[in-house]
């Protein structure tokens, strides 16, 4: 078990493994999204209250889930990189930040489009869930800006790791903001006491999209980490062999 973990920390080994695993993330991911989106848009019944407008949930909820999950992954790998000095962990954190920011923008845009017919407004300044989500986006921007302004990679890694860990305070605030303060945003529907408050016909496509989005995210993350690793190891022999040789790492 531990040998596997230690080998994973070696960039060439990780590069090979990730090439091997990527299709196993991407193909089922796209299939699940295709099925879930079709079911969600055409098959699932109308909501008794929101009618067809609720269907944006099939994009909004996976995006929101991944916006936060990416931050958690980034903070944990930043912590691992800082504590055990694992270089690959820093590469994961560096690769994850722009993906997280993209999901965060997708979450805010779809939420805003959903809010227009339901709450009668594109954006509500007083809503704690909306504010904490916006702060999450700004944290991503801060991290990306910080990484790009430090030229020494090792130093940038550590500085970004500290910032990522400090910003992780925001995650529980997002999660519980709807319970602590009453607001326009509804509280949790799927993970709550007494099981999901959603009809099975509506729920299954959502779960399929959640899993599908996560798998595609995994594939994108692996690809970005590969690029990051190639860049960081650009002076190493194995990268030179890979690029100039026959392409087999």
């Amino acid at each position, binding site marked *: 078990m531990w040998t596997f973990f230690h080998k994973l920390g070696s960039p060439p080994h990780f590069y090979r493994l990730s090439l091997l695993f990527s299709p196993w993330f991407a193909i089922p991911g796209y299939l699940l999204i295709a099925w879930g989106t079709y079911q969600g848009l055409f098959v699932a019944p109308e909501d008794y209250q929101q009618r067809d407008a609720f269907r944006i949930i099939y994009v909004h909820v996976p995006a929101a889930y991944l916006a936060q999950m990416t931050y958690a992954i980034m903070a944990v790998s930043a912590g691992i990189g800082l504590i055990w000095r694992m270089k690959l962990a820093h590469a994961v954190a560096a690769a994850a930040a722009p993906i997280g920011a993209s999901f965060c923008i997708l979450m805010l845009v779809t939420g805003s489009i959903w809010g227009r017919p339901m709450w009668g407004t594109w954006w509500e300044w007083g809503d704690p869930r909306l504010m904490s989500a916006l*702060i999450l986006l*700004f944290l991503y921007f*801060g991290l990306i800006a*910080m990484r790009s*302004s430090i030229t020494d990679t090792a130093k940038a890694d550590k*500085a970004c790791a500290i*910032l990522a860990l*400090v910003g992780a305070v925001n995650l529980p605030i997002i999660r519980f903001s709807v319970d602590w303060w009453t607001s326009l945003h509804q509280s949790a529907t799927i993970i709550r006491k007494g099981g999901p408050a959603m009809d099975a016909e509506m729920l299954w496509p959502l779960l399929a999209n959640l899993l599908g989005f996560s798998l595609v995210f995994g594939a994108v993350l692996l690809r970005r980490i590969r690029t990051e690793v190639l860049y960081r190891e650009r002076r190493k022999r194995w990268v030179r062999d890979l690029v100039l040789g026959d392409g087999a790492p």
Partner: protein
Amino acid sequence: MSGPALPGLIDGFGSIIRRDLLLLWRRPGDLLNPLVFFIMVSTLFPLAVGPDAQVLRNIGAGVTWVAALLSMLLSLNTLFLTDFEDGSLDQLLLSPQPLPLLALGKTVAHWISTGLPLVVVSPLIVMTYRLPSEVVPVMMGSVALGTASLSLVGAIGAALTVGLHRGTTLLSLLLLPLAMPLLIFGARTVSLAAGGEPYAGGMNLLAAYLVGALALAPFATAAALRISNE
């Protein structure tokens, strides 16, 4: 290992505060700049939105908080910069005293020199923006709690960006998301108090933020200082 007896923690903590305050006292310009900036920013709003008393009363709390936040941000840039440039930061890093304690000392000195003056002049805003005078203690209390948290959290950002080009812009970009909750709670507390409503909740949240920052920020600052000086 035996050697000359080291000064205790309290001595180390006290002497770094004394040193920083003395340095500032010798350059009063640095001391006054954030304060003057704060007053000038809060003068801009009545000029921009017009002198209508009702409008001023509505925006008073928010304006104070935005001005205080910006003025703290501007001054944070230099928190570790002069020490970095003249090499005394290296001495601090090498010192046998625990670095988080020294970082906390520098933060306390920063708050005394920047936050405290803002607390003192904040009643001026209450009066010029026609807020009811009962708000004065709430305003001073919330600004005191908020600026102290800003000094603590800001020290992390200042330590991370010390010695970088374009440090000031980056520092604001890093700190604003972390400072937003303070702005929300602080401005809300003051406007609730101005409307005669119960405001204890907001004060408690500000105090909670301060306690959390006090417990965690010095360690993050110390770690960031070590990274910036590798």
